[in-house]
């Protein structure tokens, strides 16, 4: 079938799954075209084509779809429903392909596999195999591509986990003043937590990661926390969380709080249903750890760089002042 051009918007779950999607489609011989990092034009396109009440990240997604649609034969927009027992994606992911088709016209056909492991027909594997059949009629090759893509995906996830500095992993859970003093010389450890499409989209979060790194800050993310540690921390909740993406955010927030890193910034988007609830969970938990600074940055299409810069500086200043004070008084 030659080189089928399949477009993947670089937004939303791209940041969770792209190695899997891309490797799978490419090894089947498709040409994968990614919309690329978010830009001002993309954002404007998205804001213009989505209804105004929808959450900011979905608007960004719309922009990416718009920028791709005339360049590809197919758009790859899976419907992610459920990938683990007892948890879902947010309703907007459940209806994502339908929303896109309803609001945007002259789209190329969508490849929209449903991933819902509660039914075997839509398990991860079966859904992917069905997608493979659209591209190739060699079922052996489809199988192989799927397993290889999955393998490389797990390696990718693991490599992320390995990025966590062993010192942090080994920090005793007990409060230790010695550690604080040591840390004064070391760079600050700050966790950026939130949906991966906020944390890793430098345009949306106004380059927060690279700005922090420039000031010699050790930036930590949820991907660096081992899955079993996240699950263990979540056990502490009075009621389990039923959103896959939020579980990761809350579990890693609890983890970093317990490790008493220097600070946590929770990146949230205005009008996000999940964030409004888990923000409260994390905020309340953070009150139990007075040495860990906690703040929340809310992003939408109007968030200005100057505002975020000022708030970041104030946050860092506060941490440094607090640490000075504490090391002088111990």
């Amino acid at each position, binding site marked *: 079938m030659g080189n089928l051009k399949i477009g993947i918007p670089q937004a939303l779950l791209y940041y969770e799954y792209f190695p899997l999607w891309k490797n799978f489609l490419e090894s089947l011989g498709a040409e994968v075209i990614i919309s690329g990092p978010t830009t001002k034009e993309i954002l404007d396109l998205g804001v213009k084509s989505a209804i105004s009440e929808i959450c900011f990240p979905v608007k960004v997604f719309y922009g990416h779809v718009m920028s791709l649609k005339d360049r590809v034969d197919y758009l790859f927009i899976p419907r992610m429903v459920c990938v683990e027992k007892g948890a879902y994606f947010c309703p907007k992911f459940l*209806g994502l392909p339908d929303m896109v088709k309803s609001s945007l016209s002259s789209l190329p056909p969508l490849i929209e596999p449903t991933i819902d492991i509660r039914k075997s027909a839509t398990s991860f594997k079966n859904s992917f195999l069905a997608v493979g059949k659209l591209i190739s009629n060699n079922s052996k090759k489809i199988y192989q591509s799927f397993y290889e893509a999955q393998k490389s995906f797990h390696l990718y996830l693991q490599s992320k986990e390995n990025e966590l500095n062993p010192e942090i992993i080994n920090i005793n859970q007990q409060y230790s003043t010695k550690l604080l003093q040591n840390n004064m010389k070391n760079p600050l450890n700050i966790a950026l937590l939130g949906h991966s499409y906020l944390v890793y989209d430098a345009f949306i979060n106004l380059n927060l990661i690279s700005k922090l790194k420039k000031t010699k800050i050790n930036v930590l993310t949820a991907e660096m926390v081992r899955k079993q540690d996240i699950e263990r921390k979540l056990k502490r909740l009075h009621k389990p969380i039923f959103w896959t993406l939020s579980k990761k955010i809350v579990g890693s927030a609890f983890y970093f709080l317990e490790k008493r890193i220097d600070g946590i910034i929770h990146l949230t988007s205005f009008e996000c249903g999940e964030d409004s609830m888990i923000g409260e969970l994390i905020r309340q938990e953070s009150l139990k750890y007075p040495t860990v600074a906690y703040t929340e940055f809310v992003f939408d299409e109007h968030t200005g760089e100057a505002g975020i810069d000022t708030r970041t500086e104030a946050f860092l200043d506060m941490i440094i002042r607090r640490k000075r004070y504490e090391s002088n008084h111990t």
Partner: protein
Amino acid sequence: MKVTIPNLGNLASIAGKSLLSNLGHEVILPPSNTKRTLDLGVRYAPEYCCLPLKIVLGNFIEALEKGADTIIMVGGWGPCRFGYYAEIQRMILKSLGYKFEMIVLEVPRGNLIRILRYVNLLRNKQSLSSLINAGEIAWSKVVAIEELEKEALRIRPRENIKGETSRILKKGLSLIDNTNSIGEIERIKQQIIDDFNKIKVKKNKELIKVKLVGEFYVALEPFVNHNIEEKLGYLGVEVERGVSIKPWITSVFSLNFLKVGYQKEKNPIEKAANPYLPQSVGGEGQPTVGNVVLASEKGFDGAIQVVPFTCMPEIVAETVNKKVSEDLDFPVLTLIFDEQTGEEGLNTRLEAFIDLLKSKKYDRHLTARRLAS
């Protein structure tokens, strides 16, 4: 144990109360929703959470102030926020220093000991048969309330003397509230329906018919939706509700095996939604779309969708409805509600929408007449 439950139209204060007091509990209902309820909720709830959470939190605060010590709330397991409401409210109330127990009714998952304790607290040492009896009475009240409200929606736009329907409805509801026998509930219902039918109506009035769809709580709680059903009635619009508490009760308590009548109706709604939204997205998202499609087929003039600001399922539905409305040439008005929603703005939008429906209807008649001649 002094128990309380959140307000929800006439349902909680009549049927919910009946269930609990028949189980021998002292029931302390929150005061009716007022500006104060809303203000309390807004002050203490997370800023960006959806409106129902805030108002229900306000209910709980006001009920605790009145002396309640046990809160009964409904739970769930996603994918929309509702399933986590109780948990967030519990945390907030605790952090405000209130002493209370919260009983969350939901399909158990995990912590079985906690669930058993809840069940025992609720059951209050009553025998199984009195438990069933209490349940049956409450259920009959739910059925009667919904049926009378539905009838009122049909009569109100036709009434000659403004307010007649609402007056009779109110009388009926208070009679239902004060009885405790299933036979009596049935009799009151019949009598009120008869009374409705005796109301003097305007002759030959061709009415605009509108389907009311959207998020469950906002659709059913008049304080929040500024009495939208009555307003529409007085504008001469016959309203049909797209939401009902019945399927909701059965799903929350996993009573689906009861095979209550509505279930036969449920599938057509999903089926109608299918070409546009084949996936359930939690809350009323998919039914909202399905109901709009069905309403257009059944000769309604338009639909009104009520949405709490940032509501996840309804925003999916709103997006999809844009397309439905375009494809079927069927007007849908989406109304977003938050703590700032003012009555005047709402009135203006409703009137404009109804005017649009009227002129559309008029045009259709003209074309029909022209075709006929």
